[in-house]
């Protein structure tokens, strides 16, 4: 519990500084925070039915952005646009512009393999490969040829597990199957696996929804630690979690982006009545 409060306290401090920065952006002056991903008029159709309507959202670099909203509101769909995982769904069409570092992700000459190496993803349910812990983490670097020899690969695996806070728990059993770990450990293994390819952005789709509170606290701590190196977008159903880990929040409802802003502002003085109702638990 102390850990939770600590994290929250820190988050609030950073949020305070964040607010100023964002105000400056809104004032049209020089922005100290870059926007890693800029979405403009993004719409998604699933075989004719529209799931997302004209989303305009900026994802600031090296910050945690939380996407909140009731089930089926399109936040996961939006998340999956950022690494084009929607491509794998038959009949799914994405329109609008989604720029990452000034390049349109949706453009046909973007290589999805390269894009997904730059934009890692952690899923709702921990999904380690049914291979050893080592092989789970080493898989990404191996397919992308990131390590020139086995020593380098060992180094990457070590570093990734350490960053994911899992090294001490698994260092003696790297060759045991990843599926034998507890749920929380599995999810941290998945984060280590995503980190191992050194992505710029990490997308997290409700990473704690299948975990108990202690494992959740560990993941949240971890997110807070790694955010200085990565741009993180997290979808969450937990209002408290959004408040604890994120600096920016976007509220989705019925496929539309209702409100966006700093987490502090969304949670303390939301402009829209629906946001107000949702965060106070009146619906959702």
């Amino acid at each position, binding site marked *: 519990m102390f850990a939770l409060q600590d994290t929250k306290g820190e988050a609030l401090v950073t949020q305070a500084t964040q607010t100023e920065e964002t105000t400056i952006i809104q004032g049209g002056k020089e922005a100290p925070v870059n926007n890693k991903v800029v979405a403009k008029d993004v719409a998604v159709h699933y075989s004719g039915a529209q799931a997302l309507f004209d989303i305009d959202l900026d994802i600031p670099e090296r910050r945690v952005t939380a996407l909140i909203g009731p089930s089926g509101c399109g936040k996961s769909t939006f998340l999956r646009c950022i*690494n084009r*995982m929607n491509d*794998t769904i*038959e009949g799914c069409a994405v329109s609008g512009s989604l720029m990452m570092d000034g390049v349109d992700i949706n453009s046909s000459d973007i290589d999805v*393999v*390269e*894009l*997904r*190496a730059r934009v*890692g*993803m952690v*899923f709702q*349910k921990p*999904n*380690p*490969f*049914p291979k050893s812990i080592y092989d789970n983490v080493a*898989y*990404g670097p191996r*397919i*992308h040829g990131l390590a020139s020899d086995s020593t380098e690969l060992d180094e990457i695996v070590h570093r990734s597990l350490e960053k994911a806070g899992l090294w001490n728990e698994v260092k003696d059993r790297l060759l045991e199957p990843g*599926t034998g770990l507890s749920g929380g450990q599995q999810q941290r293994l*998945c984060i280590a*696996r*995503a980190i191992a*390819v050194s992505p710029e952005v990490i997308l997290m789709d409700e990473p704690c929804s299948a975990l108990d509170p202690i494992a959740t606290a560990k993941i949240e701590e971890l997110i807070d630690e790694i955010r200085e190196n990565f741009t993180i977008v997290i979808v969450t159903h937990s209002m408290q979690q959004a408040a604890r880990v994120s600096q920016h929040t976007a509220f989705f409802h019925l496929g539309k982006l209702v409100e966006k802003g700093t987490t502090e502002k969304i949670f303390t003085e939301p402009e829209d009545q629906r946001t107000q109702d949702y965060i106070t638990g009146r619906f959702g």
Partner: protein
Amino acid sequence: MSSSNEMMVNSTTQKIRAGLKKRYAAERRFQFYGIAGISIAIAALVILFVSIGSKGYTAFVQTHIKLEVFFDPSKVDPTGERKTDVLSRADYAGVVKASLRARFPEVKSRKDKRRLYGLISSGAGFDLRDMVIEDPSIIGTKQALWLVASDDVDMLLKGHISRDTEEDARPIKNNQIAWTDQLIADGAVETPFNKRLFTAGDSREPELAGIWGAIVGSFYTMLVTLTLSFPLGVAAAIYLEEFAHKSKLATLIEVNINNLAAVPSIVFGLLGLAVFLNFFHMPRSAPIVGGVVLALMTFPTIIIAGRAAMKSVPPSIREAAAGLGASRTQVVFHHVLPLAMPGILTGTIIGMARALGETAPLLMIGMVAFIVDVPDGVTDPASVLPVQVYLWADAPERAFVERTSATTMVLLGFLVTMNAVAVMLRKKFERRW
């Protein structure tokens, strides 16, 4: 308020109670149907095994008769030079006959002598020839040897020919029975394990016939079937499941593959006859053609099993790999295929077991021919186990009946083993996600 609530609860409970009896009765009825169905299936299986086993077990032993055989140099090696080609063409049947005459000197008439010679199989001479060629020094010596009895004597001893039958109605005559009894009394009749059944090819003489030719033929045929249908089937399954876009054409192909699995096997035989024999002029009766035809039949089974196995790999594994930047091919070959492999192998083994037991299409391409030699390769004429069963079931000799059952037992043994391997694979590699 509370009393009306109580009443409501009570009436609900009463309604539930009223229905309970009926529900339990339905459950018991259903259980009874299930047990009855299983009992019928087990009974059928037991009847099948008992009837085949009781008919066939005697085929695993073979009657032999002990005779003093004199390797007469004037008959075996008239030139005295011990030349192999002379030795191999010598009159060994005459040697056997001479031994029989020496054993029963009282038999004089031509007719009786012919009957006497009928005690020993016509194949006994070949055994003597093999002995002489292996060791020519036995020429001129007298040896006590166990010779293969004819099928009639064999059947008499195994009780398949009754002594009570009228003489005219049975193939073995009264004096032959008398001689046999005399031999038995002398301890000159034995029924050891029938090695020939597992080492020889087919023969017109039941006591000389074996299933080794059919086993080897089945092996070559299955080899061709597996090498063709497994890679093709798995590749097609991967393509259809992982790469093909959902389109009308894909649906059409899918429907047709399912149809292909349901095509009667004889139709594949006709196809083989028309295409492989008449058009490509491939060899008749050969395992290569049989294998190709059976591969066509097994191929859809492997595709269907393969697709089902790949479908059962959880999408989260695909997403995890794709999310890391694995290409589609990498997702399939690094993750989906290894996880689906046990399922694919199970399907393949079951498909192969079906192909192993298949007869109809092979009849169409000439594998039903009478083939004595054990095949040396996929292009040699050959028979297969189920066709051997079919051939022997058709033969008039009484002794082929037990051999038919014995072959069926061997074939069932192979099939049960294959299915057991499939079940074991499935159990061993079953994954919990």
